[in-house]
């Protein structure tokens, strides 16, 4: 890696280390795996919820800059959680990224129409975090 690339990576890592991420995913082992990919890109602060309902409770109690959510969970799935976030102006600067195995046309189109910042198909890799999640954070002016 060139000196310039190393420098850019260090700056990027510094800029995301303070970002609080809420991971909404119903399988604990998968959450652990997702966190590994996020850590590789410099993220350090994580909270977890196993469904959308639990996520809503956490969002009301704390401030997050980034939400990563799976799509099919109960109670309250990823689309319903996205609806909730976009319906509240106080969360307008929260980046919302779907991380899911569901790529059905109907669900993707619904999420895109409702304002998801990005829609990533599993597996989430460190490269996807560096390129796509960073872009979503820039779009919401988090970084």
């Amino acid at each position, binding site marked *: 890696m060139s000196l310039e690339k190393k420098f850019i990576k260090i700056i990027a890592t510094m800029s995301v280390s303070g970002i609080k991420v809420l991971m909404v995913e119903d399988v604990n*082992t*998968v959450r652990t*795996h997702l966190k590994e990919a996020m850590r590789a890109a410099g993220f350090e602060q994580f909270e977890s919820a196993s469904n959308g309902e639990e996520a809503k409770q956490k969002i009301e109690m704390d401030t997050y800059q980034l939400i990563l959510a799976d799509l*099919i969970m*109960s109670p309250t799935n990823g689309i319903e959680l996205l609806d909730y976030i976009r319906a509240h102006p106080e969360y307008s600067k929260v980046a919302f990224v779907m991380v899911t*195995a569901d790529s059905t*046309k109907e669900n993707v189109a619904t999420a895109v129409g409702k304002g998801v910042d990005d*829609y*990533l*198909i599993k597996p989430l890799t460190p490269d996807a975090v560096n390129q796509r999640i960073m872009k979503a954070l820039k779009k919401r002016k988090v970084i």
Partner: protein
Amino acid sequence: MSDRKDLIASLANELGDFVKIAEDALKEIEADLIGNKEKFSIFSEKMFTIRGAAQQLELPEIKEIAGLAEEIGIKAQLADKKPQIRKCVGALWDALTTVKYLLINHESETSEEQDILKNRLNKTLEALGGARETFSPDDIMKMLEDRDSDD
């Protein structure tokens, strides 16, 4: 390597609860094929969870079989003839049994039995009208770009 083994062992242990819910749903459908066919949605939701976990942890066999079972469950809710529903339940039991086996023995090579099962699941799904249409990751990126350029 041992980290990955530990991770998959943890996954297998955790997914046991999801498998149990899927099994219970199939039992209830078997007890009343027409009256309980909406329980296929519970089965499919659990298969989606297993497929998603397998996709993230890169376990291709489990991903493929759970994915086919998920789609059959979705389409089977619309079936209205007992023999067709019974056929779906039989195929889904075999899929679930294989997923359970693979969660424990994820390093075992693809067997002829698994290929036969996948073929059977594909045929069952085709008879129900095929899988739902999906977008590729590139299609999704393009949709997002098009949306954002319109803003």
